[in-house]
């Protein structure tokens, strides 16, 4: 259980500023969606800074998936958890706002300004080259995120957990089965200690 213990933090203003700036940067790098930067969030929040435990990190992603709404809300939960780890609900609200504004503000401004231009000029060679050149890298980023999510909860040795992730992937990719059924099945399997 020791790996699941939440870190006890004392965060100064420079830590919050660092978190904000890091998420501002990730926002601009989040091609393919905020989820594609999850690998880097894990590196920053868990491995480098130790602000979240590995379990808290994957919990944030799983809880956001289990609730309705855009996936990006997992970022709000991470900010919330960092604040809770530093000891207060006020800090948790602060962390949530810091992380969400950070991850949304730059991309929102860029999208608002550039999207109309890109829409009008979608036949331009530069626009087509950008789309084509980025596509394979976006896919690599998504697969890396999946890999890190699958291995974070498994602590490196859980074959049933890998099987569950692999099976879900195949079912979602190949069938029209609703994600809610799979999340429910995953929750039940975990609840009874099968994975």
């Amino acid at each position, binding site marked *: 259980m020791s790996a699941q213990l939440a870190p006890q933090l004392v965060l100064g203003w420079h830590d919050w500023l660092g978190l904000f700036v890091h998420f501002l940067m990730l*926002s601009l790098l989040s091609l393919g969606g905020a989820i594609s*930067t999850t690998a880097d969030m894990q590196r920053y929040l868990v491995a480098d800074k130790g602000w979240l435990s590995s379990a808290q990190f994957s919990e944030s992603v799983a*809880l956001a*998936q289990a609730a309705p709404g855009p996936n990006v809300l997992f970022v*709000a939960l991470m900010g919330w958890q960092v604040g809770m780890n530093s000891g207060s609900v006020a800090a948790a609200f602060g962390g949530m706002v810091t992380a969400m504004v950070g991850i949304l503000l730059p991309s929102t401004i860029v999208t608002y300004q550039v999207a*109309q231009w890109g829409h009008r000029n979608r036949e331009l060679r530069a626009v087509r080259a950008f789309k084509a*050149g980025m596509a394979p890298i976006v896919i*690599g980023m998504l697969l890396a995120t999946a890999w890190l999510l699958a291995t974070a909860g498994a602590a490196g040795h859980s074959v049933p957990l890998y099987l569950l992730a*692999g099976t879900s992937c195949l079912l979602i990719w190949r069938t029209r089965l609703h994600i809610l059924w799979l999340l429910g099945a995953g929750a039940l399997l975990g609840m009874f200690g099968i994975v």
Partner: protein
Amino acid sequence: MSSSDSTQPHPLPASPGALFVAFTLLALQGFGGVLAVVQRELVERKRWLTQDEFVEDWAVAQIMPGPNVVNLAIMLGARWFGLRGALAAMSGLLALPLLLVLALAVLHTGFREQPQVAGALRGMAAVSAGLVAATGLRLSTALARNPLPLPWCIGLAVLAFGLLAWVRAPLLWVLPPLGLSGCVLAWRRLGG
């Protein structure tokens, strides 16, 4: 026969308020991602967009940095009502779901010590990993139509995957050089 002809009549949202309500409702239906619901609600039910317009807008929403569905909301809101529309659609998508997910997180804190709860989340996290991987695999079928030759595409994707998942390199070191290489290669393939 362009079905994205802008003169073709189709209904439009009445006000930014209507946009806010529509995006709130579709966000509440979307578990594990909202894209499928956006397509069903806005294209098939409300007919605010044609299928072709949706596909084009979705491609741009994916290229822009930021959450795809949020980007799509910003683009559509901006097209219909300018900045007010963009903010209405985006806040509709985020406001109520944010409160719900927070409630869920607080509820979860109270029950964290229970092994069943930890187990359930572990199982759901594995399913989430599968969902993300499946999204990547679904998108990868589009690589066959990419102007870059397929082996180059696979090479770039594998390189990005290996550096991020195994080397654990920061995204800031991986994305700009790989992205630039991909774009330059594509630019040259598209020329002449």
